[in-house]
């Protein structure tokens, strides 16, 4: 059995608005909001690295869990925007935390990475003890102004979670992760390139696969979407979130969203959303919560959380 013990997050200070991007890309600011639901996003400072953002989020998470780095038995870091091919940010994060022998593993998957990290952590926590899961991204350096359809979506940030084998405020009841490599070319970031996205393929597959992943997981656990008052989903696009809500026949208001303020922070977005949601809902929980993500690969999945 594994539990979610705490969340944490970090967002860079620099705010980039839609009018800012209109100047850079020529894309009308109001159309950016209409097509994505995004009003602004954060960009990392010039000297900040993916590991720096991860460290800040990890520290916030450790504070919320009342733990020290020495209490961590395993680190999993998801990022699609690491500055180099190897080593990824996991080992640098471990060093920043003062850990020199704790295993720190990279999950080089973009958007769905942090959910996959949580799913792995749920299985690994009984063996390794507390698992620190981090999603950290600096996507602002991986976009091209010549592709405004894609570049207007992304922002930077990091989110973190502690998965404990002993205690927490939510029990990780079940997980489901999937990959379909037929779409590996539909959303990709080549070495030294910019993110390339075939929006039609991404949206149509996401709008079908996410609801199915959620429904199948709930059915397996004798639940229905109507039984779930809170859904925490990858913050890719507000229109996609509404579409998933419609497919599940639940009000869109059940989907926590901060995409208007941060844009799509790829693998960080799920944990940033979870951290912000938990901060305003600190009371003991009595109802199910569902996490869901979708992204490059395509990789996607869902997690069912139940009261501890």
């Amino acid at each position, binding site marked *: 059995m594994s539990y979610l013990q705490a969340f944490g997050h970090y967002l860079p200070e620099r705010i980039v608005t839609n009018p800012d991007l209109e100047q850079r890309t020529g894309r009308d600011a109001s159309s950016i909001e209409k097509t994505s639901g995004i009003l602004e996003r954060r960009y990392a400072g010039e000297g900040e690295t993916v590991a720096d953002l991860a460290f800040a989020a990890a520290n916030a998470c450790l504070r919320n869990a009342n733990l020290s780095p020495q209490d961590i038995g395993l680190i999993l870091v998801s990022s699609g925007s690491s500055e180099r091919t190897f080593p990824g940010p996991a080992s640098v994060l471990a060093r920043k935390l003062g850990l020199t022998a704790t295993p720190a593993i990279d999950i080089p998957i973009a958007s769905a990475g942090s959910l996959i990290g949580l799913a792995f952590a749920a299985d690994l926590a009984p063996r390794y003890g507390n698992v620190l899961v981090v999603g950290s991204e600096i996507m602002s350096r991986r976009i091209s102004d010549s592709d405004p359809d894609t570049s207007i979506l992304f922002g930077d940030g990091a989110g973190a979670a502690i998965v404990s084998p002993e205690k927490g405020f939510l029990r990780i009841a079940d997980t489901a992760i999937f990959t379909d490599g037929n779409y590996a070319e539909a959303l990709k970031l080549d070495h030294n390139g910019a993110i390339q996205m075939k929006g*039609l*393929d991404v949206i149509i*597959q996401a709008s079908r696969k996410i609801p199915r992943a959620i429904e199948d997981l709930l059915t397996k656990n004798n639940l229905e979407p109507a039984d779930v008052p809170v859904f925490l989903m990858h913050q890719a696009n507000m229109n996609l979130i509404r579409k998933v809500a419609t497919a599940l026949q639940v009000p869109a208001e059940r989907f926590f969203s901060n995409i208007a303020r941060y844009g799509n922070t790829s693998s960080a977005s799920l944990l940033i959303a979870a951290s912000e949601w938990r901060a305003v809902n600190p009371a003991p929980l009595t109802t199910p919560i569902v996490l869901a993500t979708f992204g490059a690969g395509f990789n996607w999945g869902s997690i069912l959380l139940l009261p501890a």
Partner: protein
Amino acid sequence: MSTQAGILKVIHAVADIPNDPAPDESLFDSGTLDSFTLPDLVTGLEQEFNVKIPDADLVPERFDTVTKIEAYLNSRKN
């Protein structure tokens, strides 16, 4: 109702257009469909024609014109 008429009924249900698109008019180039109305079109086609469209068949080019949609639906019936 003919297959084309059924397709047009679904298109009008998911897109705000005053007239029927021409059979070979690109629904994407004309703005009739976009990334967020295409999933609705596919769901509408599944319901209208009582067919199950697998994810692997959800290639945007396949749904670009009324003629292409009709050809695809006919292939699902065969």
